[in-house]
């Protein structure tokens, strides 16, 4: 029964991954990340993603703050933050988040405050969706690890 559970969970994970690929939320770089995980670094993916979450949330807060004052928005600073977020997102395979950053940066280069606000809202939305899906992925992975680790008590002791 448990063996079937492991396979089921693996299938679930693959299904979710396929969906995220199809939606363009993740790209091939995410697979590259997974390939870097092995016995010598068994939590590599979750470590990197955890750092990505905390960095991204910091950057999103900063962007929000920079856009609060319509008159004095520091577009140069925004671009610095955006470049960071673009780089990180690209490095973990977060394709849609990265693409919104590109559009955001274009608006910032034109000092287009309204455009920047719209882009920020879209960015926050995309980031939220990504975070939720990645959490789902990790949950399934955790369950799978647990399921494959369970042993039946030896019957012939």
């Amino acid at each position: 029964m448990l063996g079937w559970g492991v396979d089921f969970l693996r299938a679930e994970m693959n299904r979710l991954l396929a969906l995220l690929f199809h939606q363009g939320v993740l790209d091939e770089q995410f697979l590259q990340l997974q390939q870097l995980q092995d016995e010598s670094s068994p939590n590599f993916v979750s470590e990197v993603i955890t750092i990505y979450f905390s960095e991204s949330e910091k950057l999103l807060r900063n962007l929000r703050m920079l856009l609060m004052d319509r008159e004095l928005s520091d577009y140069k600073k925004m671009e610095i933050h955006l470049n960071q977020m673009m780089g990180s997102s690209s490095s973990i395979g977060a394709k849609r988040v990265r693409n919104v950053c590109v559009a955001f940066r274009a608006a910032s280069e034109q000092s287009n405050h309204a455009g920047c606000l719209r882009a920020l809202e879209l960015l926050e939305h995309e980031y939220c969706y990504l975070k939720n899906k990645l959490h789902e992925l990790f949950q399934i992975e955790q369950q799978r690890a647990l399921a494959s680790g369970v042993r039946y008590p030896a019957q012939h002791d």
Partner: protein
Amino acid sequence: MGMAAAESRFHVLAVDDNIIDRKLIERLLKTSSYQVTTVDSGSKALEFLGLHEDDRSNSGSPSILTNNHHQELEVNLIITDYCMPGMTGYDLLKKIKESSSLRDIPVVIMSSENVPARISRCLEEGAEEFFLKPVRKSDLNRLRPHMMKAVSKDQKQEKHEEEEEEEREEKEIKSQKHQEQQQQQHQQQLSPRPSGNSKRKAMEENLSPDRTRPRYSDIAAVV
């Protein structure tokens, strides 16, 4: 001859201001069996390499090999991001190439943006490779030849130095022998009967101070 130890594990210095990219490049390099040190800025990289920002060349150490005596660990390759606040990857590249002790360390540049002018500028300045981010495992396969080339260059230089040493020693021995010969010749000239052309020549040369003195008998004959 510590070369054997260096060859078994190359040491790469990775420079990137982005924490995710640092983690990634570190993992990539480690899975390729390299020793890795990561720093988050160009100035920290120079510090690690034993060079201060205002130095043009590393004075004091006459190190002909790339082994910088100021470091604890020899660095076989430097891989750096291009876009960094303060000192860019390009600035770092320039500083390394200007340093007499560091210029032989191969440098690779990484960038998330594909700007042809940027790429050619870096290659012209002496970068070995230019990788587009995100860097893949397959990109790292291109690193090893550059590190091997630098190692064999060191070995050639070592060999060259050894050969020069031997040449020098040979010359010393030869000149000693020559000096001994000259002394022997000198002894023979003082005795009344010279023999052979070369001996005569030596004798004539010995007599040259006498020749500058006017010979009255000759002058008398002319007059």
